[in-house]
């Protein structure tokens, strides 16, 4: 399986970089405060004399002030307040840095969260250039991306730790998130808002490529599905349209046009199936088609009872959809 980078401390984009800079303020200051308080506590316990439990309590403090201790406590509170203000300032400046990501020439993507997969639609002013895919975002390095987020059923959350923090996909409340990948690579994201049984298998890969590589990929994705080149693949296509597959999935260039499940027009170009559940290999696809519930219990896809040669044909067809 493809790991992909998924670490807050290893940013690959402007937004995650800004947040890491804030962490570089938070961690040392908080560590300093922790060490100081523990040292004070340790000293206090060490220097105070040990007595038995029935020792007569010293109640003098009820009648007279303790100016030295009072002063020290006041200073400690004041120092804490100043440090908090410093961190507040750092937080506000980070907020502004995130908000100021330059968005000229941005790529527009519409991301919709479903139980338990991601529908991805690449927007364009020219309707013929719009295309749809699933569970993988491909973005050009260095170009800002604006992602419009929508929840189709329950609340999901977009999170790719190496690129940016979270933004929820809430039904009835549209939101956007903007990021920019600055280094090529594969960045792993995962739904971060509990969304039901298969919350654990709702992975979203972000593939950041050099602009020309991205353009090649996008051009390929805009094309309709490749036509079968042999009888087995043709039989596979016919099975896809005739069996229950076409009730939920779409393959452009065929009569399968349902939108209840990932678009499979270019399914063979993807790294995984089942939103990161299995790698996209011949054997894994075959096992998945027969019994997806074995790998992703609760997923909306039922198993399909196919004869071995039917399965091979269907699998060969799907494998050809690059």
């Amino acid at each position, binding site marked *: 399986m493809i790991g992909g980078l998924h670490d807050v401390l290893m940013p690959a984009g402007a937004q995650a970089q800004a947040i890491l800079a804030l962490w570089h303020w938070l961690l040392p200051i908080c560590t300093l405060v922790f060490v100081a308080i523990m040292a004070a506590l340790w000293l206090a316990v060490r220097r105070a004399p040990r007595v038995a439990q029935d020792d007569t309590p010293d109640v003098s403090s009820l009648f007279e002030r303790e100016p030295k201790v009072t002063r020290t406590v006041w200073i400690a509170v004041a120092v804490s307040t100043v440090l908090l203000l410093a961190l507040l300032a750092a*937080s506000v400046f980070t907020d502004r840095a995130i908000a100021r990501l330059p968005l000229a020439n941005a790529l527009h993507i519409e991301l919709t969260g479903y139980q338990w997969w991601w529908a991805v639609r690449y927007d364009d002013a020219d309707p013929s250039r719009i295309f749809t895919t699933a569970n993988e975002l491909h973005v050009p390095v260095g170009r800002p991306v604006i992602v419009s987020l929508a929840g189709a059923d329950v609340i999901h959350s977009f999170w790719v730790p190496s690129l940016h923090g979270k*933004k929820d996909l809430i039904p009835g409340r549209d939101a956007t998130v903007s990021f920019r990948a600055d280094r090529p690579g594969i960045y792993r994201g995962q739904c971060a808002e509990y969304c039901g049984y298969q919350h654990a298998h709702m992975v979203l890969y972000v593939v950041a490529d050099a602009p020309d590589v991205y353009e090649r990929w996008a051009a390929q994705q805009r094309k309709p599905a490749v036509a079968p080149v042999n009888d087995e693949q043709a039989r596979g296509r016919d099975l896809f349209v005739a069996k229950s597959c076409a009730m939920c999935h779409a393959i452009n260039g065929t009569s399968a046009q349902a939108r209840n499940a990932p678009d499979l027009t270019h399914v063979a170009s993807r790294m995984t199936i089942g939103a990161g559940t299995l790698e996209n290999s011949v054997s894994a696809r075959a096992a998945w088609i027969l019994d997806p519930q074995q790998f992703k219990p609760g997923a909306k896809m039922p198993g399909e009872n196919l004869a071995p040669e039917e399965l091979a044909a269907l699998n060969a067809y799907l494998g050809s959809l690059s």
Partner: protein
Amino acid sequence: MSADAGSVSAAGVPLERSQRARRKRADAVAGSGEVLRDGAGWGSRAALALDHTWRDESGFIGWLRTNDHKRIGKRFVVTAFLFFCAAGILAAVMRMQLASPDNHVVGPDFYDQLFTMHGTTMMFIFAVPIMQGMGVYLVPLMVGTRNTAFPRMTACAYWLYLLGALSLWFGFAINTGADAGWFAYVPLAGPQYGIGKRADVWNNLINLTEAMGLMVAVDIATVILKMRAPGMSLRRMPLFVWASLVASMMIIFAMPSVMLAANLAQFDRTFSTHFFNPAEGGDVLIWQHLFWFFGHPEVYFIFIPALGFVSTIIPTFARRPMFGHSAVVLSLIATGFLAFGLWVHHMFATNLPELGKSFFTAMSFMIAIPTAAQIFCWIATLWTGRISLRVPLLFVLGFFAILVLGGLTGIMVGAVPFDLQVHDSYFVVAHLHYVLIGGAVFPLFGAFFYWFPKFTGRMLDERLGRWQFWLFFVGFNVAFFPMHMLGLQGMPRRIYTYGAETGWGTLNLIATIGAVVIAASVLLFVVNFVRSLAKGALAGDNPWGAGTLEWATHSPPPAFNFVALPVVASREPLWVREADEPTHVSGLSAQTREGLVTTVLDALPDVRYSYPSPTVWPFIAAVTVVIWLFWSNITPSGMYYGLIPPAIAFVAWYWPSRKETAEELLLQRRP
């Protein structure tokens, strides 16, 4: 407190008319004719009469009818602790499942129920009730009175709580365990996606435990404000009592919010309303506002009573009064107010306006200041004190280390940009366990060791206690510290499994090992508890040489708490005693359950008060309310037909008795 020093008389204080009085076997002790008055000390005829008046009938009926705050408080604590153990076992199963990648100990359906039951039980069935239970037991003793203000209501609250908790767990046992998370976000918990009756059971639990919380909070706040011992002005009030007052006030403002939300959600489920249905103009985000407007203060009304434990334990073991008593009180009150301005920091990833979120960052940072002030006051108390390092103090020192770390990660997640990264990740799992276990469970174990002698008359074993502490402290850090790293490495919460390619396996295995050590530690406490209950060293009235009033009576206290109500002239009434001050009030009737109501600010005697008698109706009322809720889940008409049995029960509860009215009229005569 003995009767040989001077006393003031309560007999001249007029009797409050509205409550019913009760007089039973005490008449036999008093003989006929005159009313026997308290104040004569242990072993006297009056003390015997008090015992007859206040003691519950023996047997099952007496057990069911009791409204003795000590028995009810103990029930709360024991019940909540048992549910703590049960929810801990669920956590252990989750840790087993997560110990290695692609593990198959449990499946997603059961795992979702596990973490929902764990969170719901810990927050609603363990943390809040156990803190309130400690308050129900301790507050009347600490303020020097004989019972809570509305003991029948508190008895009813316990039954509502117990039945609610049992129904949730019964649902879990028959595969109807809540599975939408302890926060039950809609639409996942709504009619369309929350299938079966799982979310209904959860909504019922919210109604029942929140009703319980409100009833107990009203009761505790009333005792604190109106029934303190004469002389215990607000400035002399013990810090745990202050903490209980602040927590009770917070509960009164916070809990209606989640009850409202749960009922709107249940209306959506039962009557197909559309409060949370975006397709029909509803808004799913309203749920989050209503839930967190309760949910964030909830963290603080779990935490604040624990601060009260700490502020009680430290002076006793540093052998000096608390440094900065007023500062600590002001900090508690400030925390209580600020806690209501933080709820949106659970919603930073939603599409709320960014500038508005900055306000909540500022508030989240600001609430650290009163907590810091208290920490510095505790350190100052230890610094200037002379220390006896017993187990309760050991737990408080552990509390310092863990809470401070949790508080600092709390500041981190309070910052909007950083929270966007770690929100709903294992970083937050680590943070919240540091805050809740460090901030509440460590002080709670300290409090168990500290007050166990008062509850039972016997000491818990010190050696086992030290073992338990170190196992817990080490196990806790081994279990939860790695989760910070897991969160930063991108592991989201509430996933039932993860692939090997994520690289999360090793840290998860370490966390699971820590969980096993924690389980061993809790087991050790249970062993210690059972052993000490049977053959622990006898404690005596005041084994720690403490300064607050609960130690002024026997351990365990008699049913009537004090043989005569104490009079208070200082912050530490058992440590500072003026020779010319009265030590107790005398003159309350020993033959009826009579108490003294005092003024809010100065605790001057105001009116006499007749406590209600024990009765079985609070129990029956609770049962009928639970039936009503479940009936309404099955069929909408249950919503109104189901109201008939509770209506009957509540009328019976308040039905006046001729005998008690006559007795009350008798007491209203001038003595």
